């Protein structure tokens, strides 16, 4: 195995030390950190992403690629990427909305269901507009063929 350059070794070494510091502090203050529950959460969040979120995202993308014509599929995928990322934050707000009694908190007092739908609607409109503009700009296949025929016609006798 080739030797690592000193800079990378140093960077990695600092990383290991920082990691060790965090882990040791977590493990030495068990009353406050509850390591067993913490570990369950760490593994749980990893599993939720790797087993649930990522496969669903990749599966939906694959389905769209199969089911729709390439250009429409690309626009739908892009819209779902943008909208999905916004929802990744927005759905937490919708979920927790209305769970706080004190209005003075000013916490989650908006109508997040309506707001999220509004933002997602605007995103959908933006991509739809982009798609329609691109469709309008591209000559239809029939036109293209006709144009091609015009272009390939041999020059008239002169």
């Amino acid at each position, binding site marked *: 195995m080739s030797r690592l350059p000193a800079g990378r070794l140093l960077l990695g070494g600092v990383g290991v030390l920082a990691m060790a510091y965090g882990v040791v502090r977590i493990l030495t203050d068990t009353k406050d950190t509850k390591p067993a529950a913490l570990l369950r959460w760490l593994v749980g969040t990893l599993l939720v992403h790797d087993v649930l979120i*990522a496969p669903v995202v990749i599966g939906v993308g694959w389905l769209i690629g199969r089911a729709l014509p390439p250009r429409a599929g690309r626009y739908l995928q892009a819209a779902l990427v943008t909208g999905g990322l916004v929802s990744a934050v927005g759905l937490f707000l919708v979920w927790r909305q209305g769970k706080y009694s004190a209005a003075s908190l000013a916490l989650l007092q908006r109508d997040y269901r309506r707001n999220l739908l509004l933002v997602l609607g605007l995103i959908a409109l933006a991509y739809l507009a982009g798609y329609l503009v691109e469709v309008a700009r591209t000559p239809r296949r029939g036109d293209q063929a006709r144009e091609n025929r015009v272009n390939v016609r041999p020059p008239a006798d002169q």
Partner: protein
Amino acid sequence: MPITLLPDAAPKLWPRFAAGVRGPALTARVGRLLGIAFGVCFVTGLLSHYQYAPWRWLPIPAAPYWGYRLTQGLHVITGIACIPLLLVKLWSVFHRLFVWPPVRGALHALERGSVAVLVASSVFQLVTGLFNILQFYPWPWGFIRVHYWMSWVVVGSLLLHVAVQLPAIRAGLAERVTREAATRGLSRRGVLLAGGAGVAVVAATTVGQVVPALEPVALLSPREPRRGPLGVPVNRTAEAAGVTRAARSPQYRLSVHGNRVLEFTVAQLEAEPAVHTSLPIACVEGWSIQARWQGISLLDLVRRVGGSASSRVTVHSLEHGAYATSSLTGSQLEHAVLATHLNGQRLSVDHGYPIRLIAPDRAGVLQTKWLTRIEVG
């Protein structure tokens, strides 16, 4: 040394993902942005942590008075924007989860283990951080300590990851981002644009809780800083703190202890010469709002009991619990005001009536409310 127990080819049921447009060109670019964002969160997080326990010889400065407002606003908004950013980053390397063989040797196992630590701690840190902003604690541990120590794990495993992957990162950044779709679907450029749009929309619709000018588009900000009583939100009401009765009691007194002891009734506090200031309430949960305050100069009181600008002053609240006291030294002490009025009106009991602390560049939970005792050391 290769592990010979595993077959050369992956077994039939092993998941197979074509890399498609995923690859170093995309990963390195998203990763660079995410690395910078994590760096911002780590540094601003350390600054916030320092607010709670500053060293005696290095007190929190009073200037700029909006310092904590800026750094904690950055911390929270950057952290929220990291959620979509991290999802894009993880998507861009997901096929690598299923490389065959899964482990090539001891070093490779360690490296993969450190990536698992990085991913788990990052997702954990962002999700629990968001829950904290939403004051939602479905776990048995103390959020503040775990969030602080876990940040060392995140940053440590990130540095290790960068050290291991540096050649791949360099190659990825040198590679062009192609417009052409490798298979059916988005091109690399398309993924970057659509993902970037998602991150931008999240940031734009939440930043209004720190930047008042952007509040009209803050459709997804958890807080509305202009909405509370007297134009300022209340994080902990008098009822929740259990001080309503004591704060309104005719027996209420504020005592100031130094070389001698001074005692004030509410009427005497209100009769003291007033100073005016404009300072923000900047909450650790990321929202902030500038407000006008009127009250008594803390340093004046400190001097009247024999203290000076170099004293260490501890203020005590009527409430009991984690934030019942806080301390001031140095330039924060010089500029601190014991406020009786907020935005031109007498403090309401939820805002800290009869009197509360307000000082520049200071975390909101340390702007102690319902003061009853001041110690000058």
